[in-house]
């Protein structure tokens, strides 16, 4: 994907969350957004995922500008996948029905087609034995992996992952990160917001440091984490890295 963001502004009430944010990624498969809480990472991701409309500025993915009206945005959202921090799954439906819902209701597959579509991914990620369970019967890690799968089985152009492991304990975090790592190896394109720096370093083609509503630095992860001169970036990594 090739992402070009110009002059992006987002405000909630009188608070400016994104302040003329600029970013050009060049051609990358994975973009990882890092930075302090409240710096604007998640706000940026929601705009990229077509969930919120910015006050000003433009976002261009692979030469196509993101629309601003709801019907076009809905059509756009159907071509991408988004996973939030928690509570992605619909609690009244089984894991299987959660996976089938977008395939059948949004993408027009018949039930046999939809079931055939999810069978192989469920097996591959070791979730086939949990498909009949309701979300309340799944562990946090299983829930997130089903949520990622639900975003994936509609064959999206790219995934948006908003702190997918922030609500999980270390063991479950590991199983979800492992899945995302596998997706990267399979060629899935994604934009990921995370606080897992070791993981970010491993999967990021490009890392962007978002703080104070702007991209304060971007480049290969090693450069951003180890050798960035910007004081705000250096002080952040000095505090979060062991």
């Amino acid at each position, binding site marked *: 994907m090739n992402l070009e963001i110009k002059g992006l502004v987002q405000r909630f009430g009188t608070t400016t969350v994104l302040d003329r944010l600029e970013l050009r990624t060049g051609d990358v498969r994975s973009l990882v957004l890092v930075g302090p809480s409240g710096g604007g990472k998640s706000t940026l991701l929601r705009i990229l995922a077509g969930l919120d409309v910015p006050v000003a500025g433009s976002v261009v993915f692979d030469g196509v500008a993101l629309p601003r009206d709801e019907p076009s945005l*809905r059509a756009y*959202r159907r071509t991408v996948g988004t996973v939030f921090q928690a509570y*992605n799954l*619909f609690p*009244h439906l089984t894991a299987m029905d959660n996976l089938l819902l*977008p395939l059948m209701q949004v993408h027009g597959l018949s039930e046999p087609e939809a079931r055939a579509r999810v069978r192989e991914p469920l097996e591959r990620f070791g979730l086939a034995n949990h498909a009949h369970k309701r979300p309340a019967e799944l562990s946090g890690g299983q829930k997130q992996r089903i949520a990622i799968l639900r975003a994936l089985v509609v064959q999206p152009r790219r995934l948006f992952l908003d702190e997918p492991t922030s609500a999980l304990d270390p063991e479950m975090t590991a199983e979800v990160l492992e899945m995302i790592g596998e997706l990267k190896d399979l060629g899935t394109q994604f934009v990921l917001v995370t606080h897992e720096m070791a993981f970010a370093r491993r999967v990021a083609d490009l890392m962007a440091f978002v703080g104070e509503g702007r991209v304060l630095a971007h480049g290969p992860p090693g450069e951003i984490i180890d050798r960035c001169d910007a004081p705000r970036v250096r002080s952040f990594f000095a505090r979060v890295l062991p």
Partner: protein
Amino acid sequence: MPRWLAHTIVVVLFAALIALAFSRVNYAWNWAGVWEYRQKLLQGFGVTVGISVAALVASTLIGMLAAVLLESKNPLLEAVGRVYVEVIRGTPLLVQLLIGFYVVASAVGLENRYVVGVLVLALFSGAYMAEIFRGGLAAIPQTQRDSARAIGLTPWQSFRLVILPQAVRLVLPAVAGQFVSLIKDSSLLSVIAVSEFTLAAQEVNSFTYSTLESYLPLAAGYLLLTLPLSAMSRLLERRYRYEA
């Protein structure tokens, strides 16, 4: 101790206490007098069932409509919903029945007291239903709406497939409780001379001068209707407790 045993013990103790109270007042029972009017009581019971079912259906529809008004972004519509709910919940059903029948219904030429009674009862109960429904919808977290949008559902699909099924599970116990109240509240329709169960008991009492014999069957009759509803409410509550 198993639950059924505990319940039985409490019921027996309670009955013993009531029996003791009756024995202390040396009440002269006259069941034979009331037995002659059993047909009247049964008819009244039937009318109460009919009124309750009709008002139940109507109040559910009114409650849904009012909940939509309460959630409306249009301030005028929201005000209509809010004023309706607050006025109805803040005034006695007795007053609403009297004004509804002798003023409003007369003004519009509606003379059937059964229709008026059901309408007033449905409007009364609908105000409580509206708050139950509104609360149920509001209790669905924003992340569910976000997730529904993220997978590309339209607003109507999101409501139908994601929000409504969860909200219905949340409100069912409270709705069943409201139905219990509605059945008992229907007894007030006697003030506009709808010959339902309570009015039947009042009439039997005035014919026989046997107050307790007239009203005890009344209590039993209402319990016959409300206890199954309460049991169903608890059952539903257990069945739908899927999310911590």
